[in-house]
């Protein structure tokens, strides 16, 4: 007597289909599970690694900041020096020198010339009020003035006022410009 399981062909097909589908699905699930585990392990490893690097960097930053804060005095001195140097450079660029004009005045001391007023307005203009005793001295002074102005690199000498006073003296106001 046959004691085996007696399945109809239809039932056999059904079971085989279900089995095959289950097998396929299980393979898919194993693949997904494997992928999940792989990604989870990788993510955890990366997370732990980057967190450790982050914490190490934070500690390093804190240490560097502390060291810099400890040198705050030095920093403020350095910032002050740099700040003052910037300002000093600006000031020195704009600073006007009177020395050249003073040396010009020294050169303008001329026998017979009497200076009653000398003004330096900035560095670009000198104003001299004075007189000479006669026309001969005036002529000599003019020649002398032309030479000095040219030699010293000034642009021009202009008589802004000129008059003959009593006693033959010549009064003038002279401007020498750069």
């Amino acid at each position: 007597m046959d004691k085996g399981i007696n399945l109809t062909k239809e039932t056999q097909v059904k079971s085989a289909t279900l089995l095959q589908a289950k097998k396929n699905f299980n393979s898919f699930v194993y693949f997904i599970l494997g992928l999940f585990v792989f990604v989870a392990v990788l993510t955890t490893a990366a997370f732990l690694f980057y967190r450790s690097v982050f914490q190490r960097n934070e500690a390093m930053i804190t240490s560097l900041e502390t060291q810099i804060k400890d040198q705050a005095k030095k920093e403020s001195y350095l910032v002050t020096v740099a700040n003052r140097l910037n300002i000093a450079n600006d000031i020195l660029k704009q600073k006007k020198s009177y020395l050249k004009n003073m040396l010009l005045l020294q050169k303008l001391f001329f026998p017979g010339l009497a200076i009653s007023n000398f003004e330096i307005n900035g560095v670009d203009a000198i104003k001299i009020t004075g007189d000479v005793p006669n026309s001969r001295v005036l002529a000599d002074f003019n020649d002398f003035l032309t030479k000095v102005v040219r030699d010293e690199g000034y642009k021009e000498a202009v008589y802004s006022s000129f008059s003959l006073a009593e006693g033959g003296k010549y009064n003038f106001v002279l401007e020498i410009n750069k």
Partner: protein
Amino acid sequence: MSKISLKDIFEAFFIPLLILIFCGAVSYFVLVPKIGEVFDFRKEITAQKEKITKLSEKLTTLDSYSETELLELSNLLLEAIPNEKNFYLLLAQSKEAFKQSSVAFGKFSLSPGLVSSASAVQTTKDGKDDSIVSLGVAFSSSFEALLDLVQKTEKSIPFLQLANLRLGTITPASSSATFDLAGDLSIENYFRPLPKTLGTIETPLPKLSEADKKLLGEIKNWQRFQLEEETASSEEISGRENPFSF
């Protein structure tokens, strides 16, 4: 033909489905946020590296300077360009300059204006430059003495600017080689405020160029009109909170 029952399907796929749902849920609620955190960490680490580079450079620069030397330089430069409008000091230093050059210091006039004890100001409310204090002085001297004064104030500490020089009658002195002069002039003194803060901790330090170092070397040798009772300030500074309190 009989169909496969739902029960059969459920029994066959229950556990794998459960695993899939678990994986999906864990991925959605845990894994994806963690991956986001990993990317955030990477970004932050990049920023940290930049910050570390900046801080290390700053620390190296700071280490390369001597505190004593910097203190001396800052005191020297603050003497050259004060941070406060100290008109009395200008008057005293001008007198000292005249004395050193043998120029007689006569009448003087001064308009200090707004007196700032805290710090200098760049401009007043009406926009006028208020970072210069000017002293008008009447004087008498020989030409050489005046020339000496002009030379000394050209390169002096504090920085001084002569202005509006006006001479009266120039007459020959008893010695024929020189002239006696009398007139008036203005002496201008500059002052500028100090920075208020040091900025953030990673703000790069200013660098002193070769030209700056050369200028510092020159300024050190410039004419001083320091008064005897005046001493250089060397007060303690109270850290980053009040870094310019000297």
